[in-house]
């Protein structure tokens, strides 16, 4: 069902937890499956120097949170913003079709956290892009 990478990030998730006095926090839920993701960012000079998460969700959601926080650490805000769910899923060696939306949840939570930082620091939030397509065949996807 899940790749070894997913299982690794699920059983030994990186960056679990809370950042005290974070620069930005994002929380996002998926209304269909009920899962909830929360991310905390520490930003300096528009670079994400630390990221942590808390997730209520399935194995794919936890692994996506873990991988996504790993991938944005050390990145600029712009770079982090353009991290797609597809890239997260690929870094995990793939997700089952009906679990692609778990990586979407990670992407959206990052966007929320970045915008929270922007607003808090008196800047305009960035436009929330369209729902990023998952790249799977919509016919077989059970999303």
């Amino acid at each position, binding site marked *: 069902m899940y790749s070894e990478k997913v*299982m690794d990030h699920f059983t030994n*998730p990186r960056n679990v937890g809370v950042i005290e006095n974070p620069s930005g926090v994002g929380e996002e839920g998926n209304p269909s499956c009920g899962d909830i*993701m929360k991310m905390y960012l520490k930003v300096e000079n528009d670079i994400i120097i630390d990221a942590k998460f808390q997730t209520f*969700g399935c194995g794919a959601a*936890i692994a996506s949170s873990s991988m996504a926080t790993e991938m944005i650490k050390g990145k600029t805000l712009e770079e982090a913003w353009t991290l797609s769910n597809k890239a997260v899923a690929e870094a995990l060696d793939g997700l089952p079709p009906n679990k692609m939306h778990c990586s979407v949840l990670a992407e959206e939570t990052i966007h929320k956290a970045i915008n929270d930082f922007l607003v808090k620091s008196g800047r305009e939030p960035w436009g929330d892009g369209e729902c990023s397509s998952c790249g799977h065949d919509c016919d077989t996807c059970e999303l």
Partner: protein
Amino acid sequence: MDKKIIYMDHAATTYTAKEVVEAMIPYFSDEFGNPSSVYSIGQSNKKVLDLARKQAASAINAQPDEIFFTNGGTESDNWALKGAAFANERKGKHIITTSIEHHAVLHSCEWLASRGFEITYLPVDKFGMVSPESVEKAIRQDTILISVMYANNEVGTIQPIAEIGKIARKHGICFHTDAVQAVGHVPIDVVSENIDLLSLSGHKLYGPKGIGALYIRKGTRIQSFMHGGAQERKRRAGTENVPGIVGLGAAIERAVTHLPEEMDRLTDLRNELTRELLKIPATHLNGHPTKRLPNNTNIIFEYIEGESVLLLLNMKGICASTGSACNSASLEPSHVLTAMGIPHEIAHGSIRLTIGERTTAEDVKIVTAALKETVEKLRAMSPLTPK
């Protein structure tokens, strides 16, 4: 498999018992004749089918010629619902069922609704129990069928079938019960409980997968579902799965023989398991505390999500499920828990443990410890866990 597996998902499927497989083996390659044939190797298989029919009948106090073999619980449910609906449509098009049925019943009902039938889905109380009064109230002039499951596959609640059967009989309405989880696990009597149609399946009682039966009380109006050859006295077409039927018969006989002792043994083990798990904070038992299948416990762990629990348990060699196996690909919370009034986010944290004939007190201890650890680990990650 290199490490010991503790299997606690018997409601999803059981292994086929060794002696059942042994009973089946001769019918694959040696006694393989088509039971409809004239020559001896086919004819002898006919006798074997009759024996299996007797074995199945005696488990539910039916007559052998009221047993019709199908390929499983799903077919039995489809046949019962669609067959009874179409056979009685001149009388009316109203069907009563419940909101906690297996999808084999619910989706058959939805399909019938798409073809002009009207379905009433009865609610359940917080224990997942249907009230006989609600059944009686729902009956209309044009009601032709009542379908209420014997025991729920997710939360294990045993329904008041005898009371409902009495009401159905009083009103002259055909009464079907999906007893897939109940046959071989609790005593059933189609006569005293006034059941007209009953579904059962092999792979829930240590029989093979892909075989089941529909009990049809003599005189019940029902159309065929599987059309074709003249098998099963012209009511269910298709070359008989002889090894499967032999296996089903052997498995039912085996289950019935041990039933009373096994019920007691499982009830004790299950109670121990439940008691230990409820010691974990913010946990609740789903389903009725006592009127439930002896092998079923279903627990909600607040703040965490079921699939991640299962994955961690699996890594410890423990097999469990969140509810019904056939919808584990679905993201929706269980329709059974929802019908019982359990909120979405909490319903997502429920785990079903169904024990079986090999389960030991030692297993219960290991699973309890493993679940404690797992729940703690996941709660530590969850944004919902209170500080």
